[in-house]
């Protein structure tokens, strides 16, 4: 079945979500991915939205993280402190993040391109990203894969990944055992090397070569001997995405 690049991106992101875990969901692709995961393999995924939505059904696609669809038929409608403190206590498994730039340690920029006080491009700012990147056990970044976005040096470090490498998070005071876990892009799926905390290629998307991934990455990506290939979207995944999750084509 034919599919758009974004549809595959959503499917690969959804497949990272585990049943019975909790995850902070941001606007856009993470919402679609969570809605898909809940209808496929992870019906007991607990979706958390930073302004207070906790354990909703995601029957209707939200347009923002404070949208009433984020707590439709939810177990709890809480507040921002409550949910962020839940994460600070160690009870949130995953957090989904995005950004304009990512570096080899999974640090993210969503604040400025250029100098802070006179930026070339002013981006929205941290929002909940910094909190989610600080205290969730594992974070998953969703990015478009280009050299402008996968950079050697960020213009601004908004949200902590592994900072400067092994031990840096803990030295800065961030909770032990937390950090970036996966990066899902329109070209590939990446993880992190345990010893160096550097990003490594795990799998390419169908039709994408390793060389293409390297060409579109502005830093040295670790290329292991064995690299997988992501499965294309299944008919069921596409049917759910197009007919049930985003029938009005708000995102896809």
């Amino acid at each position, binding site marked *: 079945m034919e599919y758009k690049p974004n549809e595959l991106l959503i499917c690969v992101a959804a497949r990272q979500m585990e049943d019975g875990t909790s995850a902070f969901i941001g606007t*856009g692709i993470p919402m679609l991915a969570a809605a898909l995961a809940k209808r496929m393999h992870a019906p007991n995924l607990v979706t958390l939205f930073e302004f207070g939505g906790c354990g909703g059904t995601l029957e209707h696609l939200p347009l923002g993280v*404070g949208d009433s669809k984020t707590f439709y038929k939810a177990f709890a409608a809480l507040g*921002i402190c409550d949910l962020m403190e839940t994460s600070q206590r160690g009870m949130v498994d995953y957090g989904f993040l995005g950004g304009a730039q990512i570096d080899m340690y999974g640090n993210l920029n969503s604040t400025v391109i250029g100098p802070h006080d006179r930026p070339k491009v002013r981006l929205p700012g941290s929002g909940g990203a*910094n909190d989610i990147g600080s205290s969730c056990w594992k974070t998953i970044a969703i990015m478009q894969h280009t050299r402008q976005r996968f950079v050697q040096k960020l213009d601004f470090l908004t949200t*902590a990944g592994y900072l400067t490498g092994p031990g840096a998070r803990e030295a800065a005071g961030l909770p032990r055992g937390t950090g970036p876990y996966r990066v899902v892009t329109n070209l590939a799926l990446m993880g992190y090397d345990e010893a160096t905390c550097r990003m490594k290629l795990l799998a390419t998307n169908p039709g994408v070569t390793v060389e293409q991934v390297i060409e579109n990455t502005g830093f040295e990506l670790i290329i292991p001997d064995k690299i997988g290939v992501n499965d294309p979207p299944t008919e069921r995944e596409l049917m759910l995405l197009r007919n049930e999750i985003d029938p009005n084509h708000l995102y896809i």
Partner: protein
Amino acid sequence: MADQEMLSGLKPPLLHPDMDANREWLHKNKSMRLVDKVMDEHEAVRRFVHEGDFIATELYGSVRAPMGICREIVRQGFKNLNFAGQGVMETELLIAAKCVKKCELTYQGWEVYGISNILRRAAESGELEISEWSNAALAWRLKAAAMGISFIPTRSMLGTDTFKYSGAKTIRCPFTGQIYAALPATMVDVGIIHAHRADRYGNAQIDGISGFAWELARASKRLIISVEEIISSDEVRKWPDRTMIPWFLVDAVVHQPFGSYPGEMAYCYERDQEHMQSYFQATKTEEGTKAYLKEWVYDLKDHQALLDKIGTDRLAWLKSQILGR
């Protein structure tokens, strides 16, 4: 770790967290007496917002945002306010109308649509002075003020440029040695919250997620609440557990049905997506922004004039679109 140098952000907080001064101010200026606080938006803004004030709004630009009060602030022509927060539309309107000089920002953007043209122009020209904070950090700073303490230790912002361009400092826990980001308390001059309903004294209820209304209400020297509906105090007394904002925190109660328009209000009305899209298009240029502000803010004398302009059919349709329980 024992030798690690303690760090300071480059942008000192706009408000010095002097909690004894705040205690004295609150003791002198706030009271638990039952006073009818219902007034219109002109009076609320005229009495409680002053040039140079540090203000904060809640929840979030397209959701239960105090749009009606923010439009009135724009109409009254303020030029020198500061704000803490985030927004899709409410803080953006204040920036667009050049009411603010400095802000402690966490997020200003349009989620699905993209980045804010208004923030881009204000930040890239250097017109707006910005310090960076995380979402939870701003809420926790209000929480610290609500607790009456001058800072709160957290595990957010550490190790990042967000910290560097904030007014946070690192500190070491006296019990464990753990490093935390110490966030300065924010007791704002004026807090502005849109709630579902309140009685005439200001006992307010909110349905759905609470955002950071609890914290902001307790971290505001002056608190203006706008409400969809004014209810009787007998009704409040039947459900005292539903009072999220008790009367003694509140200075003004403004009756503004559709006060979050074009944003949504949980269980009441859906956002006006078409209006928001047309606003977003308009803000792509300075001229478009001015034309929008003229048509939708300056040329309307009050909130009722806005509702008249939108029309009852459209408002009824927005009500019909919101999800039930």
